[in-house]
């Protein structure tokens, strides 16, 4: 089976516009819409084969262990599907959501925090559907909420409620929550970090390295507003830092170039850090459809599985 690369330029109509999505007040419903859309997209998409592997469902082929046949799917669809859950059920995913004030900024009708919460909810919902255990940590300068990774009835709802709380934190400090996660989560799992990373990255590498050293798979989502990315302001104005309240009078036309350069350098630094630690780093503009973000996570998972499988098949000796 070929693995066609995901084409991000899919027809826009197939993806859900985040603006429209954010009009849904219920976070769980929002996540469900995304996931179901994602599913529908997958089923209608020409990359069917890809998705089977991707979603850990595979049509039964001879030589497959019949123990892994999903009889429920067979009952519904009269088809044989192999469900490989030995790995996945063990998956513990921790969603680390930044609730600092900088996340409360948004120029497109909703904030980065809302976008991050929706993304986290989508991931949680998706993983929950797969039967994975999902945990949640919200943080700003310190850990705010902590929900251990579980897969039980009501947990998802609890998680959704926690995510639905408004972002009312203070400044961003990634060090404390990352260290705390490293302390709390002993078992290996997937750590999804949702933040704008608009903070100094001095100690980020060390803390991320601590997580990676624990065997966690780390996915970093840098969520940024389009205005932050393009700095589309035109008129001179008094800019106020939503996090610190600091004000600055500046002429955007004059400051844009330097800003973009610095932002890009910052993002490059983040990517480099993640790259060194084997963590996936995705920069998400808040106008980007959430399905694509979900896709990024799954692709990351798939890539990692492939790498692991290759490493297991050939082994170090082979190399």
């Amino acid at each position: 089976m070929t693995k066609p690369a995901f084409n991000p330029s899919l027809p826009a109509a197939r993806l859900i516009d985040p603006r429209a999505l954010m009009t849904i007040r219920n976070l769980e419903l929002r996540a469900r819409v995304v996931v179901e859309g994602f599913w529908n997209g997958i089923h209608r998409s020409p990359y069917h084969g890809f998705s089977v592997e991707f979603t850990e469902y595979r049509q039964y082929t001879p030589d497959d262990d019949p123990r892994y046949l999903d009889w429920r799917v067979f009952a519904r669809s009269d088809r044989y599907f192999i469900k490989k859950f030995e790995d996945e059920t063990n998956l513990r995913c921790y969603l680390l959501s930044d609730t600092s004030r900088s996340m409360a900024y948004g120029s497109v009708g909703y904030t980065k925090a809302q976008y991050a919460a929706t993304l986290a909810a989508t991931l949680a919902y998706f993983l929950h559907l797969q039967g994975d255990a999902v945990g949640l940590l919200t943080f700003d300068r310190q850990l705010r909420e902590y929900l251990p990774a579980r897969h039980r009835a009501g947990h998802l709802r609890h998680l959704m409620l926690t995510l639905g709380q408004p972002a009312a934190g203070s400044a961003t400090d990634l060090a404390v929550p990352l260290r705390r996660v490293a302390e709390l989560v002993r078992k290996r799992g997937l750590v999804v970090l949702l933040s704008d990373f608009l903070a100094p990255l001095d100690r980020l590498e060390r803390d991320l390295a601590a997580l990676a050293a624990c065997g966690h798979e780390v996915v970093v989502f840098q969520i940024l507003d389009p205005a932050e990315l393009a700095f589309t302001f035109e008129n001179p104005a008094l800019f106020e830092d939503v996090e610190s309240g600091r004000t600055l009078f500046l002429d955007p036309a004059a400051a844009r170039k330097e800003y973009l350069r610095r932002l890009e350098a910052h993002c490059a630094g983040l990517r480099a850090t993640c790259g060194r630690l084997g963590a996936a780093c995705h920069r998400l503009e808040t106008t980007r459809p959430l399905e694509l973000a979900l896709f990024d996570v799954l692709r990351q998972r798939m890539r990692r599985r492939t790498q692991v499988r290759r490493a297991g098949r050939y082994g170090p000796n082979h190399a």
Partner: protein
Amino acid sequence: MSFLAPWFLLGGLAVAAPLVFHLIRRTTRERTPFGSLMFLFPTPPRITRRSRLEHLILLVLRCVAICLLAVGFGRPFLKKTVASPPAPGSARRIVLLVDTSASMRRANLWAQARARAESILRSVSSADQVALFAFDRQVRPLVTFEQWNAAPGGERAALALGKLAANPPGWSGTRLGDALITAAEALADSSGKASASAGRLILLTDLQEGSHLEPLQGYEWPRGVELSVEALKPGRSSNASLQWMAEAGDSGAKGAASLRVRVGNAADSRREQFQVGWARPGGGFVGESKTLYVPPGQSRVVALPTPSAGDPVDRVVLRGDDEDFDDTVFAVAAETARLKVLYLGAEAEQDPKQPLYFLRRAFQETRRQVVQVLAHSPTAALGAAEARDALLFIVADPLPGETCDAIRVQLAAGKTALVVLKSTALASTLAGLLGLDRVSLEETRPDSYAMLAQIDFRHPLFAPFADPRFSDFTRVHFWKYRRLDPAAIPGARVVAGFDSGAPALLEVPAGKGRVLVLTSGWQPADSQLALSTKFVPLLYSILEQSGAPDPAPAQYRVGDVVPLPSLAVGERSAAVLRLPDGSQAELAAGQTNFSQTTMPGIYTVVSAQPARRFAVNLDPAESRTLPLSVDELERMGAPVSRQGPAAAYEVRRKIRLENAELESRQKLWRWFAVTALGVLLFETWLAGRTGRRLAVQGGATS
């Protein structure tokens, strides 16, 4: 176009503000929240070409509005040509009015005045015409325009200065108001009516408070007469004054009298301690002086015991003052007038039933007046000297013809005779006194009594009784009287009549004098008159009408006219007076007024027997030496012009006033304000429209 407040045009520089604001990119006070400023650094607003191009119309409108407002606030007006003052080089008519009042004797005021007059007279051009006037109570022309013009060009100033030097300050008071009017009139009259500028009046004075400016109040200053005031200021300013108040104890017969003087201290005086007391001419105090403490601006009244008549002191002197021109008050000792009343009657003096008994007791002796009643037997011959000395003749018994003639001579000279008709036997005597052949008298005895019913209170004899409190004569009963027919006596005037209609008191003129006829006696046999309260006042009234001097002493000031009637009447020759400086002055025959009171001091009428003295003092107003402000003259309506910088200031002020009047008439600022408002309204509308359009465009692009 001119501006009343041109400095407001600087406000036009404010057009720089919209220019700069248009060049600076539009800033906003609104805060723009942003995720993080960690990648941003402050950048100042930049000047852009784009904004200048975009809002050019708005910029122009705003600049125009500011300029219009600046011009409006500058109070613009359209200047018209104003008649310019005459060129300084043209001929002028100048009256130099110099104060020669007593207050100019202070310190070096007169030297200042002469120096100032000299500089003025030397500075006039040969074409100028100058008159020199001096004034105190009156204005004296020293040099007239004609005399000035007649003098050779080089000697004019010397002539005027010589005249001025010959007229130093006297002792008179200051009548500045009258002097200004006189001088202004002279200036206005002497110049042609066609000329716009009649001339200039230069006043050299100390401008003291007591200058009497009141006449200026109702005076319309002649057009074109310009007044310049050269206010002279004395070096020293301490001045206290002495003023004669009044003599106390006039009514006391022999008691100790005192002279009351007021010691005043000028408000700007620096001295407070003074001594005051009687003094001899040119000498120190006689007796004890009184030490007074008078703060500046206040006055004290002090009573000084009047010295005895034999003491030669005649003045009260104030010591401790810088300016001594007003530190002396002259006072003559009170002189006792001795009046003689000649009673022509035969009765015994001690008989209480006779008129003489009451007459002697009617006149009381006072310090100023001693009335001597001399009884003279009717049968004895009346000496000429005796008749001359008598002021009043009272006839109570029939007189021989010679005596009547002697009395008639005195009557013709102005004396008075009172005929008391005790009986009808006096008919021939009365006829003799009146110069008639006969007068018929009829003894009348009323049933009960008669009383005075018709009294002419307008007559000087009864004028003191005119007040209703004293006019009741009904309690004076007359038991009998002698009826006579007033119509039979030419010129007779009934002053009082009985209730029966018969005359009670008649006045008949006789030569310069007169004969008073009382038709009843005052003794108890005839009437109750002698016992009534009316008797004594009536007698004094008769005495006063006979020419007795006024008991109240008169105070004279320098320049006053002193009446000397008794001298002129009594002596047909000229009276001779010795003036305080020792010189003598003669009063022309027939004149009764002495007007040469040019200096304070004691004036003595040496020709009178005995010599009569009167004191003349300084006008108290001269002691009010506090300088007046020149503005006071302006307030009184005199158009004072200033000299030097003050004159230039005055010219500027006048031009400014004219400009202000023009501006207030034209009110051009209103048009500028309205235009500016219109421009601003249009600008507001345009700015709003532009803003909306930009907002719409912005919404469309986003």
